[in-house]
C-alpha cells in the first residue's frame, strides 16, 4: 500500500471537530438608495423608506470539519462560497445559527492583505504576520522558511513596489502557507506563480494533507485540485448545502450542475430569439441530439443517444455527427457528411451508440447536422439544419483510471520503445 493510499484510509471523522457551523444563515441589505449621507438618510426616514432590499445569501447551512481534514468547498459563482468563508473567518457574523472554531484559524480571503508598496519585503512579511496574529518572535521563527519558499532571498530588503507582480504574489502565498496556524482557510489562491512554483505548492499541499494536526479549508473552482487534495468536499448552490462527502462525487455533481446551467442559459437564449432554435429553420424545424445514457459515464460505458429530426422535402439527405471536445477544443471525431443516409422522411428518431474506451476524462458535445447533396458539387453536401446549443448533447467521461491531460487514454494507445535495453517502463 503506498503512502497516499494510507492517508485515504485515515478516518478523520473520529478526530475532534475543529470547525462546526450549525444552521447558519446570512442575508445582506443591498441599498436601493444611496444612503451614505445625512440628508438622504433623513429623507428616507421621513418618507418611511427602508432604503435597502434583503438578499438571502446563505440559508440554514450546517456542517462540521474534523481535525486534519483537507476540506474543499465548491460551488458556482454567486452561490455563497465567499460569504461562507468570511463567516468562518469571523469577518461577517451570521444572522442565525453559530460557528464554532477550535484552535488558531488563519484566513486568506485574499493574498497579501495589508501589503504596503512603500515597505520592504521583510517589513511586509512582519506586518502581514502581525495582522494574522503572529508576534514578532513567531514571525521571526517562520521568516527564513517563508523567504526560502518564495525564492526571494536577494530581494527582501527591496521595497515591495519594485517587485514584479509575480514576486509579490509569491511572497504573499508563502506567508499564507507557512503561517503556523491550526486551520488554514484558502480562497482560490492556487493558481499563482510559474510552473516551478506551482510544483512546489503542489508538494506542499500533498505534505500538509498528511499532517494530522493541520486542517485546511479550500474554496476553489478547480475540480482537479479538489480530487487531488481534499479528503472531503462540500458543494454550495443557492445558499444551501447541495452535496457533502466524497470529493469524487461532489466534483461530479459540480460538473453536472455547470452543464445544466449552461443548457438553461441556452434555452433562455433560444426563447429570446423566438421561433426556430439556433441553427434550424422552416425546412428543418426539428433536429435534436438526446442523451439516452447517463450524462456522466466511465470509459467502460457505451454512450447511447438518439437523434430526432423533422424533414419533409423529397430527395436524399444525410445526418453528420461530430464529437467536440469542450475543454481541450477541437473536433475529436466526425462521421463524415455523406455516410449516414436517412431512409425515412417526416418526424423520426434514430438510435446511435458510441464506445468511450478510447478517451481520457473530458467533457464532450455531440453536434448533429442534417445535410443534402450539393447541386453544384456532386461530392459535397449542404447543411440544412444544425443541432446547436440546447439541441446538442453534452456528456462527461469520468474514470478513476483515466488521466486528465491528453485526449486518448493510455489503454487505447501506447507508445512502445523499440529497444528494451534503453528504456525501462514503469508500471502506470
Amino acid at each position: 500500500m503506498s503512502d497516499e493510499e494510507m492517508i485515504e484510509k485515515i478516518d478523520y471523522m473520529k478526530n475532534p471537530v475543529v470547525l462546526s457551523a450549525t444552521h447558519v444563515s446570512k442575508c445582506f441589505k443591498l441599498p436601493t438608495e444611496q444612503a451614505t449621507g445625512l440628508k438622504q438618510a433623513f429623507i428616507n426616514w421621513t418618507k418611511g423608506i427602508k432604503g435597502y432590499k434583503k438578499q438571502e445569501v446563505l440559508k440554514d447551512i450546517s456542517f462540521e470539519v474534523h481535525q486534519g481534514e483537507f476540506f474543499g468547498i465548491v460551488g458556482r459563482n454567486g452561490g455563497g462560497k465567499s460569504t461562507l468563508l468570511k463567516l468562518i473567518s469571523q469577518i461577517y457574523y451570521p444572522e442565525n445559527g453559530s460557528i464554532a472554531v477550535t484552535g488558531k484559524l488563519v484566513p486568506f480571503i485574499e493574498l497579501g492583505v495589508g501589503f504596503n508598496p512603500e515597505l520592504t519585503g521583510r517589513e511586509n512579511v512582519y506586518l502581514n504576520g502581525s495582522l494574522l496574529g503572529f508576534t514578532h518572535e513567531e514571525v521571526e521563527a517562520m521568516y527564513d522558511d517563508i523567504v526560502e519558499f518564495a525564492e526571494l532571498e536577494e530581494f527582501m530588503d527591496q521595497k515591495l513596489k519594485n517587485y514584479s507582480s509575480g514576486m509579490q504574489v509569491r511572497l504573499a502565498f508563502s506567508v499564507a502557507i507557512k503561517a503556523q496556524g491550526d486551520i488554514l482557510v484558502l480562497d482560490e489562491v492556487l493558481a499563482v506563480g510559474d510552473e516551478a512554483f506551482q510544483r512546489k505548492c503542489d508538494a506542499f499541499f500533498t505534505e500538509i494533507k498528511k499532517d494530522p494536526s493541520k486542517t485546511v479549508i479550500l474554496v476553489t473552482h478547480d475540480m482537479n485540485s479538489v480530487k487531488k487534495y481534499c479528503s472531503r468536499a462540500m458543494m454550495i448552490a443557492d445558499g444551501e448545502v447541495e452535496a457533502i462527502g466524497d470529493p469524487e462525487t461532489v466534483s461530479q455533481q459540480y460538473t453536472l450542475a455547470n452543464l445544466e446551467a449552461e443548457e438553461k442559459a441556452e434555452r433562455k437564449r433560444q426563447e429570446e430569439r423566438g421561433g426556430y432554435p439556433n441553427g434550424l429553420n422552416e425546412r428543418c424545424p426539428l433536429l435534436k441530439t438526446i442523451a439516452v445514457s447517463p450524462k456522466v459515464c466511465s470509459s467502460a460505458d457505451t454512450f447511447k443517444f438518439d437523434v430526432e429530426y423533422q424533414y419533409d422535402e423529397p430527395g436524399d439527405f444525410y445526418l453528420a455527427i461530430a464529437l467536440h471536445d469542450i475543454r481541450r477544443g477541437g473536433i475529436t471525431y466526425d462521421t463524415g457528411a455523406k455516410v449516414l443516409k436517412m431512409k425515412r422522411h417526416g418526424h423520426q428518431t434514430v438510435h446511435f451508440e458510441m464506445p468511450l474506451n478510447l478517451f481520457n476524462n473530458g467533457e464532450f458535445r455531440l453536434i448533429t447536422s442534417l445535410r443534402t447533396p450539393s447541386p453544384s458539387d456532386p461530392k459535397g453536401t449542404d447543411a440544412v439544419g444544425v443541432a446547436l446549443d440546447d439541441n446538442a448533447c453534452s456528456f462527461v467521461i469520468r474514470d478513476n483510471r483515466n488521466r486528465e491531460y491528453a485526449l486518448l487514454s493510455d489503454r487505447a494507445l501506447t507508445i512502445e520503445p523499440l529497444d528494451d535495453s534503453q528504456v525501462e517502463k514503469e508500471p502506470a
Partner: protein
Amino acid sequence: MKQLVTNIRDRYGYAWTVLQGLVKTDFKLRYQGSFLGIAWSVLKPLMMFCVMYVVFGKFLRMSDGTPTYPVVLLLGISSWQFVTESTNIGLRSVVDRGDLLRKIHFPNYIVVVSATIGALISFAINLVVVLIFALVARVQFTWRVVLLPLNIVELYAITLALTLLMATMYVYFRDIAHIWEVLQQLVFYGMPIIYPLTYVTNRGGVLADLARLELLNPFAQTIQDIRHNFIAPETQPTIWNQFSNWGIRLFPLVFTVVLLWLGVYLFRRNSRKFAEVM
C-alpha cells in the same frame, strides 16, 4: 493572579500584536521619501511654534505678560494638535482600513486606537520640544509635574471617546468629517489656547463669568491642567482654582467617562457590521 495574566494575554494578545504592527508601519511611512525623514517629527512642531509665537505673541500681543507665556502657548497648541490629529485621522480609520477589515478578522477598534496612538507619539515628541523650550526659558518646575501623566490620560480618554464615536458615524455618514472640521474650529476658539483665559477674566463682569465656563469643556479643562501642572502653576487658571463647587469641578471628568463609555458601547455594537456596510 497568574490566571488573570494569562486571561488578559489570551484576550488582548492578538489586539496588542496588531496594534504594534499598525503603529510601526504608520510611523515608518509618515515621512517616507523625505530627505530629513524622522527629523521632521521634531522640526515640524518647532517651525509651527515659531509661526504661532510670532503671530500671536508678537503681532497680536495676546500675551498675558508673564515670561512663561511662549512656552504655555506652545504647550497648548501641541496638546490641541494631538486632539485634531487623532480625531481627523481616527474618524476615517475604519473606512481607510476597509480592505483590511473585509479580509481578516481582528478587533476593529485597533485601527482607531492605532490612529490615536500615532498622534500620541507625535504629542510625546512635541512635549520633549516644549520641555527644551521650558528649560531655555528657565521655567521653575514644581511637584505638580507628577500630576501631568494623569492629565494626559484624561486628554487621551476624551479624544479616544470622540474618535470612536465619529469613526462609527463616519462608516454610515461621511458628512461627519465635514461637520467635525467646522466644529473643531469652534471648539478651538471657545478654549483659552491662543488667548490666555486671564485676558478675558481680567475684564470682569458677565464676560468673565462666561469665560470661566469654558473650563467645563473637558478639552479646555485638561489642557489648562497640563499647562498649570507642567509649566506655570501661578499664571494658569484651572477649573480647580476657579470654581469651588465640586459638582462643577467634576463635571468635565464625569463627562469624559460617560462619553468614553458611549463611544466604546456604540463602536462595539456596530463594529460587527463594519465589514458588510463598507
